[in-house]
């Protein structure tokens, strides 16, 4: 067995799992903390990925075959045909900003309504984004897709070893986002969100502007998803509307959160690794068992098993436990009642 090949594979696996962990953190903000039923993750996934890919695309290079044939990623843009060639992290920031802006618009329209309307809206957005990029050829080459999306510091390392650099980049971004979400979730802000999840009426009667907080949560979670989309674009380096199939861009992420533990950020990351492990691992099964449909079935079996054995997910929701205050008076200790 080729040890180097195995390690290469595991690094590639970890990159994808960590990118999915970012989406799962975003979904945890929406669903785990606030109870927002976002079933259109694919929409923010695609928006983030396309934004980063378009902004960082370099000028067309006639030496490259695809650019020679198609004229570059931005060939159909009148003004931008020469390529914007933005810095990698600027692309990530822009991906987050675009997703945040779209979430702000959708959210301010739908979040005041019943929860069901938000779900329908997110589903609609996901499909609209996909159809937009499929049909509006000027925007991102339609079904031909975007190719040769640049690597961050791609000149530094030979192509076959590039994953070893990219895994560090993804790990750093994941860590930053994890700390940011964890801080927010365990603060009074996160407490208001969980209160909204439990009972909006009580939360409003406790003086909190419920629609305001829901909007913040929706925008914040969407921005995290945008970052995930951007990292994904620079990893796979090819995007087409087919990439954002609801199965691998929405359903799998829900599976990750449910398996890992909704409302628990560590659980979200763990769930991403477990579910992606099942998805990626089953491709090595013999014969019909490595069919995508069978592999998907395995994720379904995993969800059902977890829901039966550990309904809260592998880790369950985190709960703050406060130490009992020591008895104030010595006399009270003497009674032995406490």
């Amino acid at each position, binding site marked *: 067995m080729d040890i180097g090949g195995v390690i290469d594979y595991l690094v590639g696996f970890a990159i994808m799992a960590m990118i999915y962990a970012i989406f799962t953190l975003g979904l945890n903000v929406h669903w785990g903390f606030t109870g927002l039923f976002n079933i259109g993750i694919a929409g923010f996934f695609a928006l983030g990925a396309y934004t980063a890919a378009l902004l960082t695309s370099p000028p067309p290079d006639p030496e490259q075959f695809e650019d020679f044939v198609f004229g570059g990623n931005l060939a159909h843009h009148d003004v931008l045909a020469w390529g914007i060639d933005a810095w990698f992290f600027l692309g990530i920031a822009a991906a987050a900003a675009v997703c945040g802006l779209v979430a702000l618009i959708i959210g301010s329209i739908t979040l005041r309504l019943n929860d069901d309307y938000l779900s329908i809206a997110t589903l609609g957005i996901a499909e609209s984004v996909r159809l937009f990029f499929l049909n509006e050829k000027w925007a991102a080459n339609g079904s031909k897709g975007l190719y040769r999306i640049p690597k961050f510091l791609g000149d530094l390392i030979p192509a076959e070893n590039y994953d070893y650099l990219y895994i560090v980049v993804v790990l750093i971004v994941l860590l930053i986002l994890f700390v*940011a979400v964890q*801080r*927010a979730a365990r*603060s*009074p*802000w*996160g*407490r*208001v969100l*969980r*209160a909204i*999840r*439990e*009972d909006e*009426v*009580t*939360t*409003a*009667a*406790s*003086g*909190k*502007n*419920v629609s305001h907080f829901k909007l*913040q949560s929706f925008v*914040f979670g969407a921005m995290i998803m945008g970052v995930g989309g951007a990292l994904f674009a620079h990893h796979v380096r090819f995007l087409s509307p087919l990439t954002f199939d609801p199965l691998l861009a929405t359903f799998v992420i829900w599976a990750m959160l449910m398996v890992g533990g909704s409302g628990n950020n560590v659980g979200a990351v763990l769930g991403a690794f477990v579910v992606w492990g099942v998805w990626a691992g089953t491709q090595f099964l013999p014969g019909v068992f490595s069919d995508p449909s069978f592999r998907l079935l395995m994720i379904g079996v995993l969800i059902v098993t977890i829901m039966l054995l550990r309904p809260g997910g592998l880790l369950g*929701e985190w*709960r*703050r*436990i*406060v130490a*009992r*205050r020591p008895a104030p008076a010595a006399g009270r200790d003497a009674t032995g009642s406490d």
Partner: protein
Amino acid sequence: MTDSSPILQVRNVTKDFGGVRAVDRCTLDVMPGTITGLIGPNGAGKTTLFNLAAGDLSPTSGQILFDGRVISGLRPHQTFARGLMRTFQIPRELRRMTVLENLMLVPARQSGERLWSTWLTPWKVARQERQIQARAIDVLELVNLAHLANDLAGNLSGGQKKLLELARTLMAQPKMVLLDEPGAGINRTLLRDLSANIVRASVERDVTFFIIEHDMRFVMAMCDPVIVMANGGVIAEGPPTTIQRDPRVLEAYLGGYVNGPA
């Protein structure tokens, strides 16, 4: 206190639900510093009136003033900000949050409720959290729930949930509290604690209470004045002893059989 103006004024308020008129040209005043009772048969419109005052519903017509300013049509968090807080007849605790968290949610203007503050000034947030937590534990000790601070609120008994509702109002430091049947379903001992806490809050913190209650012993012992509603309107108002003997009240409660068939 005799020359002060009412803290809550309900002016000719009507609320229709489709064809049902739940509150019908209702007018009443609640004076500051009082523990005012609101009684009446089931379906009289008492809870609807609370929902209208707290902003959970908007009146079909009429006005509600709090502290001299119109509050009808405001949303619940806005009436809360003016100093008006309500509890629910059927406790609406935050089930999958601890008892302590249920209380720590309540204080207004927490710096940690701003997302960026949780990242940029975590020490300020942490300091405020310690203060709020200490206050929440004080309140829990006051209502004898301190030993349950870390339990999920959904696991409390019915009576304990009632106490938690009261505890939430003590966390908020409001000017006025609308209590919707605080005594329903809780035992005599707890009810005594509850009454004591209400009286203490009323005297020490200068909170006005407006209480819907069916337990007449509780109402007669605690409330003065007592307002009686029936069919969406006020039919009587006065000190409890007078109300108890008022024939209109007896008729509303007993459905017109006071003078009975001979």
